[in-house]
């Protein structure tokens, strides 16, 4: 755990007596891109604040580069770049002033890299931050975050409110950074499609718990959508015990048959499934991350199993 740039161990966060998160434990492998997903209010931003030492956990422990996050915040921040959910830079400072300000704080500041990035992102340099567009603000903060040559990049919903072009630019920069320096990334986002090609590991918060924490590739292997014609039951509005071979996250009975999202797919099990009596024309399809997320955090179908 101490080797991980960021690790949570049994973290509980309460708000006004209500338990927002309970016993979250996860660890970011060095060089990974960890996407933390969850619905609005799931506790992603609160967990990010804990990760950055901006607030203590009510229970459990958060460690940044092996040190307790709150106590070691100032030291750790020299190795961390942060893009917050809400642009929070002082409104009267221009991009140049912000760059100058940050350059005096970070030991490994990369002035040329920041300048080039701002140039590429088309950020006006002399306009006060408060008067920039949301995309420009995000770009400035992203450039500042990368300017510190960070070992860990924390992005809290960085694409919130950005248009498609801005989002694409941001991801391109992120990919470039990853390719150049192998930075570890911890990000929260609702843009599942955007990060699908970048993330190496995914966590999903739902119901106050970390209900999923897995490598994205493995996740995609074990989450599949199975569709089949249902002759198992007399009524087409039902399905029988044929799905008991799988853990089904969501099941929907359609007019033509049954559609189920299963979380423990493997070929051998599927072979056994498709030769069951009454199962007709079964097929298994890979799922995009968005579908996986919906299956876990979205509204339940008529499913009987949970992941």
């Amino acid at each position, binding site marked *: 755990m101490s080797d991980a740039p960021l690790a949570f161990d049994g973290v509980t966060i309460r708000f006004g007596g209500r338990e927002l998160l309970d016993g979250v434990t996860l660890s970011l492998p060095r060089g990974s891109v960890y996407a933390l997903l969850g619905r609005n209010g799931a506790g992603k931003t609160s967990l990010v604040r804990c990760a950055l030492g*901006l607030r203590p956990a009510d229970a459990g422990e958060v460690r940044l580069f092996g040190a307790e996050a709150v106590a070691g915040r100032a030291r750790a*921040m020299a190795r961390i770049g*942060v893009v917050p959910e809400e642009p929070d830079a002082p409104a009267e400072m221009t991009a140049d002033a912000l760059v100058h300000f940050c350059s005096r*704080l970070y030991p490994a500041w990369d002035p040329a890299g920041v300048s080039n990035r701002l140039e590429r992102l088309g950020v006006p340099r002399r306009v006060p931050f408060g008067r920039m567009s949301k995309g420009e603000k995000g770009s400035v903060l992203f450039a500042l975050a990368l300017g510190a040559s960070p070992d860990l990049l924390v992005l809290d919903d960085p694409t919130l409110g950005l248009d498609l072009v801005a989002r694409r630019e941001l991801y391109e920069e992120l990919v470039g950074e990853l390719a150049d320096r192998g930075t570890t990334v911890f990000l929260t986002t609702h843009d599942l499609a955007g990060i699908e090609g970048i993330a190496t590991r995914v966590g999903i918060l739902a119901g106050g718990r970390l209900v999923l924490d897995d490598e994205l590739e493995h996740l995609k292997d074990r989450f599949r959508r199975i569709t089949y014609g249902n002759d198992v039951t007399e009524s087409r509005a039902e399905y029988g015990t044929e799905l008991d071979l799988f853990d089904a996250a969501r099941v929907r009975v359609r007019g033509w048959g049954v559609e189920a999202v299963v979380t423990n797919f493997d070929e051998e099990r599927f072979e056994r499934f498709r030769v069951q009596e009454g199962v007709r024309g079964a097929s298994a399809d890979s799922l995009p991350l968005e579908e996986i997320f919906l299956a876990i955090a979205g509204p339940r179908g008529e499913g009987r199993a949970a992941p």
Partner: protein
Amino acid sequence: MNRIATIARAELSEKWLVFPAALLIGGFPLALARLRPGGTPSDVRGTAAILLAGLAGGALAVTLGFWSTAGDIASRRAAFYLVRPLTSFELWAGKLAGGLLMVFGATAIALVPAALAGGSFRGWNRPPTPVLDAILPSHIGPAGLGLGAAAALAILFLVAQAAGIAALARSPRLFADALVALGGAFLVSGAVRRLLLARADSPAAAGLTVVAAVLAAALGVGCYRAMKEGGIDARRADRAQARVFAAAIAVSAAGFLLFAAWVLRPSPADLRSVDWIVPSPRGDWIGIFGRARGHEPAFLVDIKTGEYLRLGFARQRLPVISANGAAAAWTSSDPGFPESSVTPHTVSLAGGRHRAVAWETKDLRADPILVFSSDARRFAIVAPDRIVVWDAVGGGMLAAATPPRPLWEEARGFTCATFAGEDRLRIYSARRAASDPATTIEIFELDVAARRLRSTGTAGPFRRAFPILASPDRSRILLRDETATVHLLDAVTGETLATFSGGGATFRSATFLSDGRIGLFESGGAVARLRVLSPGGAETGAFPVGGAERAWLLGEPRKGALMLATASAQPRAVLVVDLATGHVERWANGLRPAAPYAATLSGDPGALSAPGGLETRLFFDSRFALVELEGPNRVRRLFPRH
């Protein structure tokens, strides 16, 4: 340090508009001077510039203090800084430094136009208002005033910062926090009042300065803790600072209360100087008053055993001790209310327990004369408008009377009273006209049993009568006037029995001996002698006393001897004259009597010291320490102890 400076610089670059705004404000005094509202244009420019700069600086301190840190925390903009390699202290200190630089800079800039245009700031070397005049030192000077203003602005900034955090947090515990603050203020103000009533002004000021320093430090620490623990959570920040403030208030209030209690409960051992003492005619108790723990408490102390009673703070009138040394009396009043009634108190000095008794009097405005009978069984107060006698043992009032006219008026003579036996209280009221130094003494006698006050005679006029002394049997009185004449009078009628004057003597001092004889010191030219007279005034002996030009008779250090303290010879000498042989022995040099002759001016003229009594034993040395003269050249230091 670099990071603090970086934050401060960011603050300045973010809010740089305050400087041109301050310059704009600084231009108003120039326009005002053109309107000539009174005074020279130079004075108008200077005064208006200082007032406007002060107002602008104050407003900026409040605004920046309120919003800069608190606003960042409440709006979570503080996260921008907290996700940088900055400690909470660096962030807080940088914000504070930046804010204060803006406040000080803007205030100074607002003065620039007036200064360039020849505004006069000379009148501001001294604080301009009576209020500031009372608070600030008398020679504060422009630099001191500038520093004071800077300190005030800094405090204002910190107060606004704390208020901003509390307000923006919308804490549900704000009311409880306010109650804690009010409770602390209530406790401290109560203790301050007690100190001021005891005239412990300096300790009160010193204690309040420490409390203010603690609270000012708490303001800083509280805001820092708010930043450190709160970060981007205003409620958490508010709790953090509230904890610091509550601790600071509790510590400073408790500390101040303890300090006040310590100041107000000194013992005689704490005396650093002695202002006066009242010796007991018999025994070893003295009334003593001096400086201790920053104020002037009074005590009754037994100098032999060290036992003592604290009388509170000093009163103008001294405590009195009965002739037999068995009881003492003093008065108290609420010093917070100068017009409040005076309450007499007595205490028995005999035995182990000394419980003070307060005697009920209504509307007793002037400090009364307190007098005991010789055996301390009767206790009386003599006020200008009434005379009351109590049974000091049983507690009941025995007699009360109203004089035909006020017994004394301010600065017009004096009054003294003495018991002749248990049931007769004799009152000597010496009066003089406003423009005439001639003093007439009217004698009253209160028959306690009959509860009747009557005038029994008059004496005089005398040229400024000095203290009256009554003979041990209370049948005669002695008084001295400023013409170096000593008069022996009938104690009841005031009839002159003998007069001692002339003969070339320019100074005389007289006293009764314990056997009723009279001791009379007189000097003139190169001659100084002690004369001993019979109770009727006939001379029975005369003894030359060196070259002393002026000496006071202190009493009998032992039966058959008289002690004199020379006032003019250098060094001062304490001499003892053997009345049988005339032998003069020098007991000490450089001492002055601690029980002043003048102490009997309004006291009990009959309460003369017994042979070997304290009046012949207590002296002040050259450093004004109270010492006991135990025998020839044997001196024991009493107070201050060190």
